[in-house]
């Protein structure tokens, strides 16, 4: 009796010891969870709140606008020339002065502004109404102030489009693929039923690059950290009179215009 019990205990001890060493069984390693580390890019540009100043005086010809808009569209696979105007997708676009600044209405506005087209894009508000209404948190504010979109999560309810006072958001009423001229494989396209907008080139900032429109603007657009008093945007804001879109709504836009 005793002998038998001893044997069993010995056997158990040896197999337990073998088990702990985890030795011979092939492929065992593949069952352990693999937990790598997630890190930020070391080239990344950092800020507390990204902001942009658009110098409308420097946008004179159609070409000036086109160059900037093309730079954005081609990088972000933005569909162009959708026949139905109501279904257009816009990340950055030109519009009339009185449309961009309806609260600046003045029947005796200087002539220059009457014909002036103005660039318009997502304002990356400090208090973004689109973020408040999104039921799935598909749109959210990043720690660097960018109002970001997670296309994976967007259910296409379009609450954000109703909430945005600037019309900065577009809905894919149809599959955008046929209207994307040259697909950039490094950036995803979108599918039908998803809302999209300007994302301040978060993917380029992570690579240490300036947003595409800023790069293409030849100095007519200035980009930087609004919370850093020594940044270039703050310098430009100090030296120039600037306006923002619909300030009375309290969204605190981060795109400023030199008029």
């Amino acid at each position: 009796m005793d002998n038998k019990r001893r044997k069993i205990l010995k056997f158990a001890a040896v197999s337990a010891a073998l088990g702990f060493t985890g030795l011979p069984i092939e492929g065992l390693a593949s069952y352990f969870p693999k937990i790598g580390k997630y890190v930020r890019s070391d080239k990344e540009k950092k800020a507390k709140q990204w902001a942009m100043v658009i110098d409308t005086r420097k946008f004179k010809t159609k070409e000036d606008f086109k160059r900037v808009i093309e730079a954005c569209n081609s990088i972000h696979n933005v569909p162009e020339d959708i026949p139905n105007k109501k279904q257009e997708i816009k990340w950055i676009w030109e519009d009339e002065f009185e449309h961009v600044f309806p609260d600046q209405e003045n029947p005796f506005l200087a002539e220059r502004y009457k014909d002036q087209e103005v660039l318009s894009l997502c304002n990356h508000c400090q208090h973004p109404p689109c973020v408040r209404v999104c039921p799935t948190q598909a749109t959210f504010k990043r720690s660097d102030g960018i109002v970001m979109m997670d296309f994976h999560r967007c259910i296409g309810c379009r609450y954000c489009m109703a909430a945005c006072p600037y019309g900065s958001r577009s809905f894919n009423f149809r599959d955008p693929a046929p209207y994307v001229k040259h697909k950039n494989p490094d950036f995803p396209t979108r599918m039908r039923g998803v809302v999209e907008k300007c994302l301040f080139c978060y993917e380029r900032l992570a690579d240490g690059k300036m947003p595409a429109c800023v790069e293409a603007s030849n100095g007519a657009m200035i980009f930087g950290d609004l919370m850093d008093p020594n940044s270039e945007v703050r310098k430009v804001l100090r030296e120039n009179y600037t306006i923002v879109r619909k300030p009375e709504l309290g969204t605190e836009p981060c795109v400023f215009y030199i008029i």
Partner: protein
Amino acid sequence: MYDKGKIIPGLIIFFFLLTFPFWYSLGQASYESPKPKLPVNEKKCIEDVNWMRANHMELLNKWRDMVVRHDMTHYVNTAGKDYEISLEKTCMKCHTSRKEFCEKCHVKVSVSPYCWDCHVAPEEVRDGQ
């Protein structure tokens, strides 16, 4: 036995149905594991190959959340090697074909992830679409 006339045929039908999958597949070609085309130039995947085979979808999910929602653009694997988190720029650099790699298994086991609804497959670039 009462109701012998009902119970015995009932049992026969029951066992017939129970064993149906076994003898139905008799004589048919046996299941073959799909053979996705493996990269030529790279021997090591981001993590252990067997683990990737079983868990790539979870890793990709985590990658997506990390890069889109938490600004973490790089992944340092358990061996300490650094990778940029990107389906197109990292995964598909080695696995150069959606058809020859991803879909080989996905079609066979009939799962249809929606990655390529938006992400641009390497084929699309090659064909100049």
